């Protein structure tokens, strides 16, 4: 069965199962604005969730009401009115353009530069009626998707939406959900626990090397899950998986607040590679609009010699608050963080990582490349913590900032807490600008100013970009250039 057909069947099946039904009238499927226990119950009921999960959500909601929004990040934004937000499937289908002719030409120009096919452009731009094409267009062909599904099934890899997993693999979800990012972890994570809409669930069985990069592209039901996404990836002993999240194309999205939670668990000798390209709407030149992105991403290297590697290319969102972290519990485990964060115009990013060394002989590596332009602010905030029992830990941190123009800001806030004298911690940091000489050299060879900036910036970010899987890397390079348009000249 093709993935599309399977989706349709699944939707039809679910629609018959409860009263609100969502296949008959998609536009009506949204809860009213605001958040209270009833909304949490509504969301849970919509997903036809078991009682334990509803209880789990309600517990989180009770916690959240007592928590205060953090204000320590180097970010400035007006207070968020949490009662003025839709928490379930905002009615964006109503407001979508009827055809590509109605879509902002700027957006289309960007798509064109990224080399995105027309059919896919329509999906990304939120054109009415396009989502059905979506799956097929994004897949290139349904048969490719089917082949992938079958191949994954053959090796026992579970790759589905988390709402499906709750029903099909309740024991796994129950066992691991909230074990890396506890319900009480932080304001935004707790909110996510209460209202998460959907997300991805991956389980790689013992000893299996996942035969392909898993991408949200290949997961059905990927629409409408962006706002309070929940991802749970478990790599069992000796397994390997590479997961790609996001998309280089700017997504049309009416939801301003995004608060996702991603939990990764690597058991003995397992490896998880998690790559993100985030390009949500950053707001206009004057800072109007744009997504507020408050994400909690954390990986737990629970097993011996396990490895978790985060690679992120962050170019979108008006506000980015994000610290993909690794808890290195298993002896000999390895955590890596490779990041390129671009801010332009009025964007603000406060991003970095946490490496918590608990096990012996654990190693971590942090490569962070910040790029600031326009009137933006870009902060690296990183914590390297070595606990007392963690002998022979090694960490290497490299933290570079590149400034374009003289109205932007770059900050570096490293925290290093070492409680074991055998640890070797290295921290390097640089701040640089693109020199006039570099610009002129590139232009004298035929590049226009924007192309010149793009090539220099891509060179600067190369150490991170090369960590991305091939298909992402090429698009990410184009994206860096596009994100910095208008920052020179």
């Amino acid at each position, binding site marked *: 069965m093709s993935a599309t057909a399977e989706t349709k069947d699944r939707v039809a099946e679910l629609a018959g199962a409860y009263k609100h039904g969502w296949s008959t009238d998609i536009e009506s499927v949204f809860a009213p604005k605001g958040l209270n226990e009833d909304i949490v119950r509504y969301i849970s009921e919509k997903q036809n969730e078991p009682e334990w999960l509803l209880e789990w959500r309600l517990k989180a909601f009770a916690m959240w009401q007592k928590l205060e929004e953090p204000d320590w990040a180097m970010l400035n934004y007006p207070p968020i009115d949490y009662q003025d937000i839709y928490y379930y499937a905002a009615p964006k289908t109503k407001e979508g353009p009827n055809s590509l002719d109605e879509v902002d030409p700027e957006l289309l120009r960007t798509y064109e530069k990224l080399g995105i096919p027309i059919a896919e452009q329509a999906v990304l731009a939120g054109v009415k009626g396009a989502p059905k094409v979506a799956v097929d267009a994004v897949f290139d062909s349904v048969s490719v998707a089917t082949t992938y599904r079958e191949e994954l099934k053959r090796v026992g890899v579970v790759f589905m939406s988390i709402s499906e997993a709750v029903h099909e693999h309740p024991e796994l979800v129950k066992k691991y959900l909230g074990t890396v990012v506890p319900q009480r972890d932080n304001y935004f994570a707790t909110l996510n626990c209460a209202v998460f809409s959907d997300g991805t669930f991956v389980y790689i069985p013992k000893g299996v090397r996942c035969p392909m990069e898993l991408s949200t592209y290949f997961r059905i039901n990927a629409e409408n899950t962006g706002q309070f996404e929940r991802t749970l990836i478990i790599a069992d002993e000796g397994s390997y998986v590479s997961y790609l999240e996001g998309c280089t194309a700017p997504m049309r999205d009416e939801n301003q607040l995004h608060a996702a939670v991603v939990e990764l668990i690597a058991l003995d000798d397992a490896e998880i590679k998690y790559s993100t390209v985030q390009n949500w709407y950053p707001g206009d030149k004057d800072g109007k609009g744009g997504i507020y992105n408050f994400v909690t991403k954390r990986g737990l290297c629970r097993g011996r010699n396990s490895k978790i590697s985060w690679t992120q290319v962050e170019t979108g969102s008006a506000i980015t608050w994000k610290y993909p972290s690794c808890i290195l519990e298993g002896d000999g485990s390895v955590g890596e963080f490779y990041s390129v964060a671009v801010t332009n115009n009025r964007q603000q990013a406060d991003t970095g990582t946490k490496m918590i060394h608990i096990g012996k002989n654990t190693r971590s590596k942090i490569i962070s490349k910040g790029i600031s332009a326009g009137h933006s602010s870009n902060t690296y905030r990183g914590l390297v913590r070595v606990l007392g029992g963690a002998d022979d830990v090694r960490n290497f941190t490299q933290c570079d900032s590149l400034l374009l123009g003289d109205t932007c800001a770059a900050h570096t806030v490293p925290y290093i807490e070492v409680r074991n004298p055998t640890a070797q911690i290295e921290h390097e940091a640089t701040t640089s600008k693109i020199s006039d000489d570099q610009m*002129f050299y590139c232009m004298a060879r035929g590049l226009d100013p924007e192309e010149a900036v793009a*090539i220099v910036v891509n060179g600067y970010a190369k150490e991170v970009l090369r960590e991305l899987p091939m298909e992402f890397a090429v698009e990410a390079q184009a994206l860096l250039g596009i994100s910095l348009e208008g920052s020179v000249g």
Partner: protein
Amino acid sequence: MTQMLDIKNLHVAIEDGTILKGLDLKIKPGEVHAIMGPNGSGKSTLAATLAGNPAYEVTKGKVTYLGEDLLALEPHERAAKGVFLGFQYPVEIPGVSNLNFLRTTLNAQRRLRGEEPLDGATFMKLAREKAEKLGVSMDMMKRSVNVGFSGGEKKRNEMVQMAVIDPKLAILDETDSGLDIDALKVVSDGINALRGADRAILLITHYQRLLDYVKPDHVHVLDDGRITRSGGPELARELEEKGYQAVA
């Protein structure tokens, strides 16, 4: 024959003052010109101005290139129309391989000219062929642009770029400086390979040495922002023997 490059009464200033003070020069297709002069005479200013470096301000005068007002064009537009500047101090671009840089710039030029970009295989063949001729290994072509290169390697790299880009007007700013005799021969071969009926070369040099290998049709002496003498190859030898002071 019409001029390829026609410089009339060129005055150029930088922040610190006026460098070129009424320079005139005509170059026809097929010709090789050498401009010689002491330090501070304005040689590099002329090169930078022709390539469009924004740090140099043209305060007076006119430059016509292939019938067009060269000064009205942006540096990348000049490049696409066939103007190539070989840098005296080639610039480092960390993280960008020579091959990537060369392919990106070549295709940017082709796009500006309305030509199709070269595909990967065709480009690689071209780059390999040109690099080999100039004694540049493919390993070096994969390294970041000019990063950690010796002075000689940087100049050879400029010549590889020139050979691949195949310009109409090559302006070579002290390409011979910092080269040992073997490298000088290789670089000279590269320059000679570019000679042709529809192309021109402007050599800017401090020493006569390069002119033993690349025979110029015309030699000019630049002094205090003006061309004070012009002649054939014999002028270069005279300069070498008597010094700039006596000749200029």
